[in-house]
C-alpha cells in the first residue's frame, strides 16, 4: 500500500499530468498520420525531454509510444493505409469492413481491442513486478551480457529473409558505438585523427538521422499523397459491447502481445502474426479472415497494443531494450542518471510502479480522446505527405541541434538520413543498427566486468540464469539452422 501511495505521489504533479495528456493525444495524432510514426516523433522529442524530470519526460514519450498504435488504426481501417507499420495487419480485415459499410463498427472494435490489449498488458506488468523484483537481482554482469547477446541474435533472426544484411547492420551498430575514446584505457578507436570523433557518435544523432531525417526525405522525394476520408456518424461505443463476444480472441491475442513484447527483438509483428493465426484457427468462420473478420481485427489490434507495456519489462528490469523505441527511452534514463536494471527494481520500485500507473491512465485517456475526436482526426489524416516532409525536416533540426548546438552533429545526422533513406528504399532494416549500438555498448562493458571475475570462458555459464540464457542462445540458433535446413530440403523437393 505504501508503495502504491508513493507511486501516486510521484505522478500527482501538474507537469506529469500535462505530459500524459500531451503524450497520449500527440501519440494518437502522430499515429493517425501515415508516414510519421512513433519512432520519428520520439526521436525528435527526445532531446527536448532532457531538460524535464525523468518521470515527466518518460511519461510524455511513453504516451506517444503507447498511443500511436491506437491512432494508426484509423487510416488502416478507413483508407487501407496503416498509420504506423504495426497497423498493417489491421488493414486486412478493417478495410474490407469499411468497404461493406461497417467503418464505424470496425473502428470501434479496433479502439476497444486496443484498449483491452493495453490494459491487459499493464495489469500483467503489475502482477509480474514482484517476480521481476525477485529475479532481477540475480542478473549480474555475465547474465546481462548473455541476455544482450540473446537480444541481438533475436533481433537479427527476426528479419527473416534479410538475416545476413540485418547481421551486418547490427555489427555496423556495434562498430559505431566503439568510435571515440575507449572507456577503460582511454585509447582512441577509429577516430582517424579527427578531434570531433573523439567524443564518439551520439546515439540520438544516429536515431534522428535514421528515423526522422530519412523519413522526411522519403516523403519529400515520393509523390505527393493526401488520403481522402469521409466523416463518421454515430457513437463508437458499440465495439466495447461487441468485444465481449470475442473475449477469448482478445485475451489470447493480448497474451501473445505480452509474451512477445517481453522478448527482446521480437515485438509487435511476431505477436500479431501469432495472434492472427491463432484467431483464424479458433474461428468458426476462418474463410472470412482477410475479408473483414472482426476476430482478425481484434487479434491484430489487441496484440500490438499489448507490446509497448511488455517491452518495458526487459528495459526496466535488465536495462536491455528490445527494439528501437525502448532503446531511445534508455537514453532518457541515462541522461537523468536513472539506470534501468536490477538496482532500479530494488531501490526505485515506486518509480517503476508510477510508470505502470501512467500507462494505465494513458490507455483510458486515449480511448476517451478517440471517442470524442475521431472526426477531427480524419481531417488530420488528409495532410499532404510532402508538407509533412517539410515539417519533419524542420523538427529534425531541433532534435539534433539542441543536443550540443553542433553543426557537425547536424551533418552526421544528415549523413545517416541519406543512409536511412537508402535502407528504406531497399526495404532493408534500420532497427538492428540502433540495437547494435545500444546492446554493443552494454555487451562490451559487461563482458569486461564478468571476464575479470572468471578463470575460463566456461565459468561464464556456471550460474543457473547464465546457463539458462546460454541454452536459450543455443536453442534459438539451433532452431534457426534447423528451419533453414528444412526450407532448403523442401525447395529441393520442389
Amino acid at each position, binding site marked *: 500500500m505504501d508503495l502504491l501511495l508513493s507511486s501516486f505521489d510521484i505522478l500527482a504533479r501538474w507537469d506529469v499530468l500535462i505530459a500524459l495528456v500531451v503524450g497520449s493525444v500527440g501519440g494518437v495524432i502522430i499515429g493517425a498520420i501515415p508516414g510519421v510514426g512513433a519512432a520519428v516523433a520520439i526521436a525528435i522529442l527526445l532531446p*527536448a525531454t532532457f*531538460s524535464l524530470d525523468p518521470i515527466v519526460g518518460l511519461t510524455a514519450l511513453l504516451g506517444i509510444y503507447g498511443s500511436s498504435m491506437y491512432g494508426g488504426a484509423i487510416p488502416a481501417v478507413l483508407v487501407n493505409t496503416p498509420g504506423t507499420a504495426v497497423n498493417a495487419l489491421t488493414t486486412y480485415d478493417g478495410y474490407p469492413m469499411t468497404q461493406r459499410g461497417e467503418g464505424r463498427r470496425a473502428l470501434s472494435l479496433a479502439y476497444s481491442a486496443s484498449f483491452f490489449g493495453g490494459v491487459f498488458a499493464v495489469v500483467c506488468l503489475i502482477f509480474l513486478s514482484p517476480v521481476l523484483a525477485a529475479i532481477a537481482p540475480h542478473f549480474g554482469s555475465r547474465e546481462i551480457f548473455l541476455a544482450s547477446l540473446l537480444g541481438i541474435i533475436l533481433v537479427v533472426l527476426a528479419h*527473416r*529473409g*534479410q538475416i*545476413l*544484411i540485418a547481421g*551486418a547492420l*547490427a*555489427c*555496423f551498430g*556495434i562498430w559505431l*558505438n*566503439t568510435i571515440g575514446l*575507449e572507456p*577503460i*584505457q582511454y*585509447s*582512441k*578507436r*577509429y577516430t*582517424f585523427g579527427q578531434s570531433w570523433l573523439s567524443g564518439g557518435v551520439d546515439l540520438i544523432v544516429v536515431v534522428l538521422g535514421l528515423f526522422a531525417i530519412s523519413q*522526411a*526525405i522519403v516523403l*519529400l*522525394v515520393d509523390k*505527393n499523397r493526401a488520403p481522402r476520408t469521409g466523416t463518421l456518424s454515430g457513437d463508437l461505443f458499440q465495439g466495447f459491447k461487441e468485444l465481449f463476444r470475442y473475449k477469448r480472441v482478445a485475451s489470447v491475442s493480448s497474451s501473445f502481445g505480452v509474451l512477445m513484447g517481453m522478448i527482446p527483438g521480437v515485438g509487435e509483428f511476431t505477436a500479431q502474426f501469432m495472434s492472427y493465426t491463432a484467431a483464424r484457427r479458433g474461428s468458426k468462420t476462418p474463410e472470412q479472415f482477410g475479408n473483414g473478420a472482426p476476430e482478425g481485427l481484434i487479434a491484430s489490434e489487441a496484440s500490438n497494443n499489448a507490446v509497448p507495456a511488455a517491452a518495458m519489462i526487459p528495459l526496466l528490469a535488465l536495462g536491455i531494450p528490445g527494439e528501437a523505441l525502448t532503446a531511445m527511452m534508455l537514453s532518457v534514463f541515462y541522461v537523468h542518471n536513472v539506470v534501468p536494471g536490477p538496482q532500479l527494481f530494488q531501490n526505485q520500485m515506486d518509480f517503476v510502479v508510477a510508470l505502470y500507473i501512467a500507462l494505465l491512465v494513458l490507455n483510458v485517456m486515449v480511448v476517451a480522446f478517440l471517442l470524442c475526436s475521431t472526426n477531427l482526426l480524419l481531417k488530420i489524416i488528409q495532410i499532404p505527405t*510532402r*508538407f509533412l*516532409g*517539410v*515539417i519533419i*525536416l*524542420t*523538427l*529534425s*533540426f*531541433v532534435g539534433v*541541434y*539542441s543536443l550540443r*548546438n553542433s*553543426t557537425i552533429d*547536424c*551533418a552526421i545526422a*544528415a549523413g545517416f538520413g*541519406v543512409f536511412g*533513406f*537508402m535502407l528504406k*528504399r*531497399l*526495404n532493408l532494416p534500420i532497427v538492428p543498427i540502433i540495437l*547494435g549500438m545500444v546492446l*554493443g555498448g552494454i555487451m562490451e562493458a559487461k563482458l*569486461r566486468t564478468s*571476464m*575479470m571475475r572468471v578463470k575460463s570462458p566456461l565459468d561464464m555459464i556456471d550460474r543457473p540464469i547464465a546457463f539458462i540464457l546460454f541454452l536459450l542462445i543455443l536453442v534459438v540458433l539451433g532452431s534457426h539452422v534447423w*528451419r*533453414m535446413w528444412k*526450407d532448403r530440403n523442401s*525447395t529441393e523437393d520442389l
Partner: protein
Amino acid sequence: MSAEPKRAKPGEFLFVGLFFAISAFLLTQIGDQAKFSAKGKLFAQPAFWPGVGVIGMVLFTGLHLLTHMRQQTKDGTGAEIVVWLRAFEFVGWFMVYVVLVPRLGYLPSTVLFTFLLALRMGYRSPAMLGWAATSGVAIVVIFKTLLGVKIPGGALYEYLPDGLRNFMILNF
C-alpha cells in the same frame, strides 16, 4: 541460405557492395585505429569490440553478396541511384538551414525554411504557404519559447533595440 530473398531490389547489389568495400577498408585499418597489445586478455583489448563489429560487417555483407551473385538483379539500378542522389538536395536544404540559424536567428530561419521548402515542393496556394510559415512559427514557439530547448539567439538579433533583443534571444 534459402531464407534469403530470391531477387534483389534495384540498387541492392551496389549498396551492399559499397557497404562491403567500406567494411573491408575499416578492417584493414584496425591495427592503426584501435590499440591491441600483446599483454592482457583478448576480451579486454580496446580493439576487441571494434574488431567484432567490422569482422561481422565484412562477413555478413560478404555472404550476402555471395548469395546475391546467383540472383538475377532487377533492372533499374541507374534509376535508383538517381533517386538516392535526389536525397542530397534535401540534405543541402537542411544544412543551409543549420548554418542560417545562428546567423539569422531561430524564428526567421525556420519561417524562411518552411516557406521556401514548401514552395520548392510545389505548393503555390496562399493557404498552403501560409500554413507552412505558421507551422514554422508554431515549432519555434513550442520548442524554444515553451520547452526552452537550447538554441542560441541569432547574430542578427544584436541589431535590435535593447529590450526587444533580450526578448528575442530568450524566446525566439
